[in-house]
């Protein structure tokens, strides 16, 4: 049975992963785009991304466009799989409750 993932379960990381898995495979989100989308500060987003990167759930690439640094982020395969398992676990919790209500007299 699928279990909740404690790393993804954290509210901010849940939103980050939801945003990243929305991208098609091969697509990469700019750090500033993600920051604006989630309404986070640079530091806050960086900390959570680091946790996700350490777990192998997100990948980060730092490049330069001219002289300007650019950070691109995307969901790694492992992250997509972990997120799908987490969503599956959430759905099972809801369905099990529904089933319990149906069984109860």
């Amino acid at each position, binding site marked *: 049975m699928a279990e*909740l993932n404690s790393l993804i*379960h954290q*509210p901010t990381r*849940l*939103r980050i992963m*939801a*945003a990243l*898995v*929305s*991208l*098609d495979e*091969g*697509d*990469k*989100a*700019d*750090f*500033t*785009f993600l920051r604006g*989308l989630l309404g986070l500060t640079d530091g806050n987003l960086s900390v959570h991304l680091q946790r996700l990167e350490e777990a192998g759930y997100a990948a980060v690439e730092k490049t330069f466009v001219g002289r300007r640094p*650019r950070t*691109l982020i995307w969901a790694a395969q492992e992250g997509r799989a972990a997120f799908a398992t987490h*969503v599956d676990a*959430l*759905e099972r*919790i*809801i369905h*099990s*409750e529904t089933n319990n209500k149906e069984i109860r007299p």
Partner: protein
Amino acid sequence: MEPDRALDDLKIIRRMMERTRREMGGYGGWHIMVLWGTIWFFGFLGTQFLPDAILAWLWPGLCTLGAAVSVWLGVRMGRQGGVHSSIWRLILLWWLPLIVFAVLVAWLFRLNDGRDLTLLIVLTVAVGYFQTGVFTYWVISGIGTLIAALAVGAAVLAPEYFFLVMALAGGGGLIGSGLWFIYHKD
């Protein structure tokens, strides 16, 4: 974990995913839709009411302005970041042969009549929107289908008001759809 909390998490995930996909397009895509809707609005409104001498300048002027602003928006998108997607290159590759096809049809079939040319351009844009929507958001395919239906309907049922219908419903529709996507974030 309580089922209510699980349900809340699933709602958050769904909202976040929807918003991400919408914002991806919002990084320029929806603004370009509003821009060309505005050009259609003033262009077709002018075509309906203004003399040919002015129209000879109106459309080239509007299209040049539209192309320039589109390029500016594209450059701005590149600087601001957003999502680096391979799909938009494929979509661009689809639009280019479509435009070449439309130009060839106009040239080979000697389309000189303003309404015939307009119908060809509008239907070409509608096909382009439909195809873009297949790869991105189905609602864009829906907009393409509506534009095509509107153009054919106006050409057949109300030919004398064809340009007016294209200005109000076609141009207005593009402006409205673009604005809705820009401001309807959640």
